[in-house]
């Protein structure tokens, strides 16, 4: 943790300090501290069950942390429900996508934040138009918006989840495996989108098992192992092998022996 390269760029957009979450006896997140700056992509990597999803769920309001503090723009933030998180313009693309299969894409995009007509009824037309607009940016081939999500392909579902986060002008974007179900073209589109959003000054937590993708997109990389933070490194200062070493054996760059690194391959 001491090796964390801290570019002094003023106040971080998000600071999560000493977050702990336990499920029964399992310490899913065990005293993790990470931060995120505006216009930055922080790659969050680690093996299965490392605690990445659980960590970011405490930021998106899906799960309460047992202890720890969250600061947004340097101010203490209390996030206990998804609604709280949305107040801070935190948008999340969940690994499970969190879509209701029985309703259509616009209804899912606006779930909980529906556009209403002046008579307080659902304005499905406005929602569909907005959905088409965002989708044109993400996945132009996806046209049949009015069918239930149940009958969409995995990639189309993922675009719906991404569209939801993008539409509501996130300042802090959490992406938990956003490209897991996408084909190469769609993945490239999402990578483009991430770079665009980054240029707009949005801070992005990018959770991914695709180490190459993370190396392409992230500015810094935080590695978790068994609920603990192994460390946060500057992408430019490390090699993929070194990050792999952190993920698998939890050794910081320079501390792993040659034989240990060789065993990774």
């Amino acid at each position, binding site marked *: 943790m001491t090796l964390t390269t801290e570019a002094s760029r003023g106040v971080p957009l998000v600071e999560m300090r000493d977050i702990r979450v336990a499920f029964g006896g399992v310490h899913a997140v065990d005293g993790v501290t990470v931060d995120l700056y505006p216009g930055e992509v922080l790659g969050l990597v680690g093996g299965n069950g490392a605690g990445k999803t659980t960590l970011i769920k405490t930021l998106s309001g899906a799960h309460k942390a047992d202890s720890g503090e969250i600061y947004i723009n340097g101010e203490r933030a209390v996030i206990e429900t998804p609604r709280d998180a*949305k107040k801070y313009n935190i948008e999340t693309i969940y690994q499970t996508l969190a879509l209701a299969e029985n309703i259509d894409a616009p209804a899912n995009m606006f779930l909980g934040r529906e556009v209403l007509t002046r008579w307080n009824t659902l304005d499905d037309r406005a929602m569909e138009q907005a959905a088409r607009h965002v989708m044109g940016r993400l996945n132009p081939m996806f046209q049949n918006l009015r069918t239930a999500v149940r009958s969409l392909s995995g990639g189309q579902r993922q675009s719906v989840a991404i569209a939801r986060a993008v539409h509501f002008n996130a300042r802090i974007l959490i992406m938990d495996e956003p490209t897991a179900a996408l084909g190469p073209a769609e993945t490239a589109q999402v990578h483009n989108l991430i770079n665009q959003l980054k240029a707009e000054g949005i801070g992005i937590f990018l959770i991914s098992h695709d180490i190459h993708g993370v190396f392409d997109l992230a500015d810094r990389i935080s590695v978790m192992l068994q609920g603990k933070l192994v460390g946060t490194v500057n992408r430019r200062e490390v090699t993929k092998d070194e990050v792999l070493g952190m993920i698998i054996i939890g050794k910081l760059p320079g501390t792993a022996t040659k034989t240990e690194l060789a065993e990774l391959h």
Partner: protein
Amino acid sequence: MTDGSLISPETSRTAAVRRGFRAALHATEIDTRLMGMLGALAIIWIGFHFWTGGTFLTPRNLWNLSVQTATVAIMATGMVLIIVSRNIDLSVGSVLGAVGMAMAMLQREILPEWIGYDHWAMWIIALAAGLLLGALIGGLHGFIIAYVGVPSFIVTLGGLLVWRGVAWWQASGQTIAPMDKTFQLLGGGSRGNIGGFWSWIVGAVACGLILLLLVNGRRQRGKFGLRLRPVWADIVLGALYCGVVLGAIGYLNRYFLPERVAAARGGGNIPFGLANPVLILIGVTLVMTFIATRLRFGRYVFAIGGNPEAAELGGIKTRWVVMKAFILMGVLVAIAAAVQTARLNAAVSGLGQSAELYVIAAAVIGGTSLAGGVGTITGAVLGALVMQSLQSGMVLVGVEAPIQDVAAGIVLVFAVALDSILKRRPK
């Protein structure tokens, strides 16, 4: 569905005709479930017509059927939302009994001490109190289910026993009768209807609405460049729906007031016209369809049924939504209780017994999925008509009440079984 590019040995003229028929059906987008329900209805109606030696399909019996369907159908519209939200309400029959008895007690025992019998405001006070009581009972169920976390199956199973007991306890099992003169109108009968002329007006308005919906639907789809039904299909559909509505009203209007009553009103053949319970049902159906499809609350109910976790993550107060659904259910049960006590002109402690069976069956037959997330209000109303036809038919042919329950129970299980078998079959 294959597109027919593989020529099967069975490619005969009949197959081609069958395919043509399917294509036509497909073009009108009438779904198979609706066809199934109408088919079941036709079988039940025609079957009972012969079995009863020609009484089932008389205007008089169908008019009675329309009134009897109302109570089950009113409750079934609420049951749709309950089941869609992945819950169940087994208590509706008992709550109907308790609320109906409370409204009767108000009219016979409590209010007369203050305002006398047949006061003009009696029916309003009794009805309002009943609706409030229904909302409170539904709210209590909903609170325990949503906030305390007891499964709805258990809470409403308890409610089934508790409220049946309360229905008995209020009058120590006595029959409370008769109801207030105006209150009675809620139940239909020879005074509680709108006569032939206004029935035709209702029919005309309904036709107008149907045509408006069809035209509007076309325009909307056109605007978004969606695939349009062929014009002929829309015309056929419009003519069909209007024909059914006007035909039903014309047929029901052939049920005339008894001569003695008619003589007092100038004599001749005076039609009953649509009964008040049927009008109430029409109103409830419209309002519930609006709630289910146009309001946020309805959307949330469906979202919760589709994926409770997603609804929660979307920031929906899922517990409150579920509790509201149960409050709404309670109000609908109270409306049904008012209709039922008014129609019987009495409250008995067994009021609404085994109604839950019919109500749940109506919703399920009408296409509500017990897995949650799927269901329509109009489907449930049609389902109620199927169930009530079955029951009325059995009453007509003299089947004893316990055996009626046997039949209803079997139909319920059969309907769910059929549904899951059809769902398992690949398209």
